[in-house]
């Protein structure tokens, strides 16, 4: 009898479920079930500031979420899209050089790309606050070069927020793009060159299309956390750069307006999911993992 499963896996009834059960129960209790309570909360109403919200199919929370915070929604997705584009531009050359020219140093170089992220996320963002600070050397240099006006600043601008998002989520772009590039057989590029393709054309027609799954995965890994972030806008931005994360955080933990905050979170998640699907269709690749 020939085993037709190349991985030699076994057919079994109970064993896999027993192994899965504890983890699945955990995910049900602390991931799926909370989403349900959040949905319920988003349809509750709160008669007064100190009363507990009660569930009564109150759809007006969703209307409120959109009409009051439409601006923050647009801003979050714009900033996240810009940051994703910026990470792609910075990460692609790094991943390319490591994958094709890294030689024996591949793993060390890849490790170097991850090392900065062993410091805490907040501390890294605070470091950017120092770098972009009004009294820092960077702003002084830009002012004397005339790039910035004499009273111009970097901190508390949209540029600083997008820059912070770009930096903080960069490794999520470098790693998947590297994995995709590393898989490419270099002989394919040689073949293209033998057929008289220029380096640029060989890149455009061979390397780039083959690296798209990595670009896709990386873009999702950057876009989703960037759109929901509130730390960068908090430290590097101003009242004019608040994102949806700042609003959700403020509504939940400061204003204690749970129903509207829950509706906001749901709308936010829905938009993220829809943009992910649209993006997947546009790029024509659907294998996420």
């Amino acid at each position, binding site marked *: 009898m020939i085993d037709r499963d190349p991985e030699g896996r*076994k057919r079994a009834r109970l064993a896999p479920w027993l192994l*899965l059960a504890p983890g699945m129960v955990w995910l049900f209790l602390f991931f799926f079930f909370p989403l349900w309570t*959040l949905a*319920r909360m988003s349809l509750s109403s709160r008669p007064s500031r100190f009363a507990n919200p009660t569930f009564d199919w109150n759809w007006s929370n969703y209307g409120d979420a959109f009409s009051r915070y439409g601006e923050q929604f647009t801003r979050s997705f714009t900033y996240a899209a810009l940051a994703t584009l910026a990470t792609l531009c910075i990460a692609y*050359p790094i991943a390319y050089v490591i994958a094709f020219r890294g030689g024996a140093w591949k793993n060390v170089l890849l490790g170097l790309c991850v090392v900065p992220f062993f*410091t*805490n996320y907040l501390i890294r963002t605070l470091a950017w606050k120092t770098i972009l600070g009004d009294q820092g050397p960077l702003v002084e240099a830009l002012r004397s070069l005339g790039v910035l006006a004499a009273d111009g600043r970097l901190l508390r601008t949209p540029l600083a927020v997008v820059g912070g998002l770009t930096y903080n989520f960069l490794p999520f772009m470098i790693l998947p793009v590297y994995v995709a590039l590393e898989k490419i057989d270099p002989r394919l590029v040689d073949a293209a060159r033998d057929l008289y393709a*220029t380096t640029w054309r060989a890149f455009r027609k061979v390397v780039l299309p083959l690296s798209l799954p990595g670009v896709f995965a990386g873009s999702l890994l950057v876009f989703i956390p960037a759109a929901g972030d509130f730390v960068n806008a908090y430290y590097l931005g101003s009242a004019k750069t608040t994102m949806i994360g700042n609003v959700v955080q403020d509504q939940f933990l400061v204003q204690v307006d749970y129903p509207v905050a829950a509706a906001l979170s749901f709308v936010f998640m829905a938009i993220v999911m829809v943009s992910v699907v649209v993006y997947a269709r546009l790029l024509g690749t659907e294998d996420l993992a």
Partner: protein
Amino acid sequence: MNAFLARRRSRARGTVTSPAGRIGRGLVNLAAAAGLVYLFLPIFVIVLFSFNKPKGRFNAVWQEFTLENWADPFKDRALVDALGVSLRVAGIATVVATFLGTLMALALVRYRFRGGQVTNLLLVLPLTAPEIVLGASLLTLFLEPHIVLANRQFTLGFTTIVLAHIMFCVSYVAMTVKARLRGFDWTLEDAAMDLGATPTRTFLRVTLPLITPGILAAALLSFALSIDDFIITYFVAGPATTTFPIRIFGQSRTATPPQINVLATMILVGSVAVLAAGTAWGRRRARRLGLA
């Protein structure tokens, strides 16, 4: 003809002959090098400012060089206590998540069964949900007593943080171990059992040692994720429990003592050492077992 051969030969050695190609190549290398510099710029600033003697409460503008902060790295008691809380949370979350996640990965790679695909999808979902949504949903869960959780009212604090951290680590562990298990030679198990080993003995003496590096990698990842997490923790921490990131966030409104930079530098050096040691151990082990 000669020119053609020369071109082929030079290409075989991986060199580009045309000047435009050489410039392009140089530009790509330059972009990559600039990218690496950019990656390390904030790290350089963090380390540099651990030697700063700030005027006032904020360590944001360079004043003068001092070794004082390094002479007394644990001066800020609240910060050190918060780091202790973070380490304990990460320790517990890592052990539980690694156990649960590894079992799930084994089930998905080892067995063929109905519902395997769906389970895979359910596992990926927590990884694609934005952190603020995870945090917000857990907060609503902990606020309201419900029959599913035995009508228990949770007090926000250490327990709720650990529960949340285990949740987001489980998926990462399962995905990491699963990726490492792909290509595992399951016939080794059959071989052990053909030689008379019981299933338990086979698992403990053959399977487990071979998948250990994958499990350790997953454990390291979940430890790193847990200790660094701010957004989800911020929602479920409550007023009484303070982890390292929460302490920094809360404090940064009124002060940023240079000890933050000293501790951050220590953590960075420590993690790099652990990573380097782990890689070296993995290589030596692979060579000893003849896997390399």
